[in-house]
């Protein structure tokens, strides 16, 4: 009798575990669909040194090459940057964005590396920028989340964004327009500068 009762308790316990697992999965899925709507606006970041060709370039974020390259600037103290990291890594993510690298501005190297690990950014080209010295020193940028767009190694755009897909579309569109009408892009850059 006791064995039968024990088996029943075990079965019930297993059932409870499965039930809680199902609740967890359900809440995760509801959370995904009911997430706070983020702004898709991509706004110019004032004060960045447009036209600047950096003296140094962290090799771990990829080669800027001769075309367009985008650097996303995140920070370990920025709550919205965690959301950007999630957009970059969670399905479908943006691992296919070949001309993109991530810079993580942080107070200390271990804090920045924790941020990379915690948010699964290790698979993307990235650089831990201690003190934000590279980003602030080269481009006078101390804001996250922000994006720096380079063309031929030169900073041609700096933006504040919260939606990676919207940023990517904007950057791609801007660059396509620049390819078609270089004079207009140059004039736009000069106005911004």
């Amino acid at each position, binding site marked *: 009798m*006791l*064995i039968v009762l*024990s088996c029943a308790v*075990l079965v019930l*316990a297993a059932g409870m575990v499965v039930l809680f697992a199902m609740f967890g999965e359900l809440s995760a899925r509801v959370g995904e669909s009911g997430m*706070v709507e*983020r*702004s898709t*606006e991509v*706004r110019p970041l004032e004060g960045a040194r447009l036209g600047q060709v950096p003296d140094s370039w962290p090799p771990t974020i990829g080669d800027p090459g001769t075309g367009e390259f985008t650097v996303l600037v995140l*920070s*370990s*103290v*920025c*709550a*919205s*940057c*965690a*959301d950007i990291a999630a957009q970059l890594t969670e399905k479908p993510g943006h691992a296919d964005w070949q001309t993109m690298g991530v810079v993580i*501005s*942080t*107070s*200390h190297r*271990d*804090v920045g590396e*924790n941020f990379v690990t*915690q948010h699964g950014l290790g698979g993307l080209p990235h650089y831990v920028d201690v*003190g*934000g010295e590279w980003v602030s020193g080269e481009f006078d940028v*101390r*804001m*996250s*989340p922000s994006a720096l767009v380079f063309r031929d190694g030169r900073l041609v755009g700096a933006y*504040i964004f*919260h939606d990676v897909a919207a940023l990517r579309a904007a950057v791609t569109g801007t660059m396509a327009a620049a390819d078609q009408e270089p004079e207009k892009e140059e004039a736009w850059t000069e106005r911004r500068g």
Partner: protein
Amino acid sequence: MDGTKRVTGGKGGVRIGRRHFLAGAGASGLAAAGVVFGFAKPALALVNAGCCTLYCNPSHNLSQCETGTYYVWECTESSGYLYCNCCEHGNPGYRCSKTPCQNCNSSNYSSYSCQYP
């Protein structure tokens, strides 16, 4: 009859089997719980303040934080219209395993300040 004989007898054998079964079930349950929960990496929940995520509950103002060894960075919230300056003084995140960090003190602390542009 003493206790030893009872447990080795017919009915006692059943009792031993029962005990073994229950002990095994309990041990299996503990092992399973250990596997499921024991190896889970403890989540480090930081302190959210505006669009900042800090190691310590903000305890100083921004101008106090921006002295000596500090790290300050600006962020915008998801709507993009609230700007905050987030500051960590010293190294409150050093070997921090739970928040607010155990090493938050007068040398290692956090602060923030938000405004609309």
